[in-house]
């Protein structure tokens, strides 16, 4: 075991997959000599050269389309979108193309593509360097969506993404790149795409979160345990699509209450689907309303610090939401 940051784990996963499989290559803006604006690919150009670590033109739809084309020939591209905020020009290629190839060709053509992108706010990035975009894509059958919150999960899940025959969107909480540290095994391992993880066992209520909010929710759960004696179960969803209904239902069957936390804005966010699953299939387990704690419905994360902090969920605010639901 080695203790490392989230971004180190992501880089190690790519390094080891590049080493393992000559079909793996990386493209994106500034991924070459610069090593990526967040340094996710630092040192990889030096090690693997121009052929495999390819600076792209500044053009997101073709970063994805080049990945799709290469994947169709059975290469294993990892495409980096520099910020999730800039993925929208590639929406057509992701949603109309990558997601639909397998279905529309009756299973003839599959697209083993990974699209990595840093997402999320709280970093002074304003409207266009802070977005959470998972909800747009979580509506699309044929895509897989992964949002890790720990170095261990990030490495194991990214390796699984590279080895998956389907297009995988891999959203990385950029605020946690260096803030989140954890133990990572030294040998090769993978974590399957799909299953959620019980991050903290508890009896009183279930809190569902992912990415940076899973990290904050863990802090909030410790706080309410300490201060209020509330025993919250924390489920780190890790994979948003396909959705792990079994894990969601099993947890609420045990606790009877559910809170969903995300930093994406509330309306039509990912939490709505979890609430719907619980209402459809977990109604008899519930001892209270399914609650969502999410960012306000404004068009983006504002830049100025006080407004940004107002927008962002944090461990204290999540702790309050937990207390409210526990008291119901």
């Amino acid at each position, binding site marked *: 075991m080695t203790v490392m940051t989230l971004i180190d784990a992501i880089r190690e996963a790519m390094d080891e997959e590049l080493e393992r499989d*000559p079909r793996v290559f990386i493209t994106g803006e500034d991924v070459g000599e610069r090593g990526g604006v967040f340094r996710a690919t630092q040192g990889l150009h030096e090690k693997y050269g121009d052929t495999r670590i390819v600076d792209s*033109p500044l053009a997101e*739809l*073709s970063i994805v*389309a080049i990945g799709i084309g290469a994947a169709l020939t059975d*290469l294993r591209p990892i495409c980096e979108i520099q910020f999730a905020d800039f993925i929208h020009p590639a929406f057509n*290629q992701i949603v109309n193309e990558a997601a639909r190839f397998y279905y529309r060709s*009756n299973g*003839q053509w599959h697209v083993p593509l990974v699209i990595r992108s840093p997402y999320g706010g709280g970093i002074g990035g304003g409207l266009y360097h802070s977005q959470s975009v998972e909800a747009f894509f979580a509506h699309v059958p044929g895509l897989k969506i992964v949002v890790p919150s720990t170095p261990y999960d990030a490495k194991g899940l990214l390796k699984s993404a590279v080895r998956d025959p389907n297009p995988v969107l891999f959203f990385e909480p950029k605020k946690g790149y260096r803030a989140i540290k954890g133990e990572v095994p030294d040998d090769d391992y993978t974590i399957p795409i799909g299953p959620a993880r019980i991050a903290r066992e508890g009896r009183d209520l279930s809190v569902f979160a992912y990415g940076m909010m899973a990290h904050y929710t863990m802090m909030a759960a410790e706080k309410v345990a300490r201060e209020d004696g509330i025993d919250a179960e924390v489920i780190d969803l890790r994979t948003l699509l396909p959705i792990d209904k079994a894990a969601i239902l099993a947890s609420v069957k045990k606790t009877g209450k559910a809170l969903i936390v995300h930093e994406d804005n509330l309306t039509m966010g990912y939490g709505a689907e979890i609430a719907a699953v619980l209402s459809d299939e977990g109604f008899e387990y519930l001892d209270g309303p399914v609650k969502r704690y999410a960012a306000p419905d404004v068009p983006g994360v504002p830049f100025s610090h006080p407004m940004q902090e107002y927008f962002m969920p944090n461990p204290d605010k999540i702790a309050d939401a937990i207390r409210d639901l526990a008291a119901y």
Partner: protein
Amino acid sequence: MVTTTTARASARLSEEQLLQMYWYMLLSRRLDERAWAMHRQSKIAFHISGMGHEAAQVGAAFAINRGVDYVHPYYRDLALMLAIGITPTDFMMSLYGKKDELSSGARQMPSHFSSKALNIVSSSSPVATQVPQAAGIAFAIKYRQQMGLQDPNDETQPRLVFTTLGEGSTSQGEWHEGMNWAGVHDLPFICMVQNNLYAISVPIEEQMAVAHVADRADAYGVRGVMVDGNDVLAVYDVMAEAVERAYNGDGATLVEAKTYRIVPHSSDDDDRSYRSREEVEEWKKKDPILRFQKVLLEETILSDTLIDDYESRARDAVNKAQVEAEAAPWPAPEEAIGDVYAPLEAI
């Protein structure tokens, strides 16, 4: 512009190859006409036609390594598809939407071609999306060669990608970005724009301010050539050169084939509101099949008897395909929910 008559690659085509080219153009036309008739008889819901484009498509098909080189086509490419190995029955099955239809298991509308076995990549409906993907395929070919995963001289492997679209679709950002990658990386990539002067009703003058699509090639650092798209041998000539360049690692080519669709955009369109009958009649006189027929008659490769013979063979092939597709079963309703994710073992 390109190739002089003295150095014409098409001069090296055998009589047999020339007759095959004629056959695919004719077969495509008769199959296409039958589809229109079936639509008028309410046997099928939709047809989108390649009538008028046959020379551009067949001339291109014969220049590439058919069934081996990647092709990422668009909806007008019936003649191109037949020349590569899609059968009339495959096409008829797609018109009806019958079970196990080759391209998509009848999930897609007709003319959204695909055959993994023939390296024909599945196409969608949003125009131009295939172009940057084709650049990705070309990137992958070059990558494999550089990584030693593929011998550049191995003719059993795909050595280029050929993609097509209409002139109106070049207004899309997708086209621009795909061409840009092809230029930046000098990819084994050929993009043929089948310029039929209209995008549904919108004439080319409202689509672009340059006189020719090929003029844009310079902006991407790729070679641009224009060709009379109704002259199958001229198309073959420019394509042969583009193919040679791609195989030799000399980079990408943009081919603009000037042509005309002699029928409405699709079975849902009425073209009388946006183009004159005189214009359409003028272009019908330049019909690429009649034109090629004339050349082959002059060269005594074709004869009147042979023409009749080809006609009856085409009629038989179309009849047989229609009968087979009509007799084929419909998909089970539950086939609607298969193939969302490839299983992990697909790797």
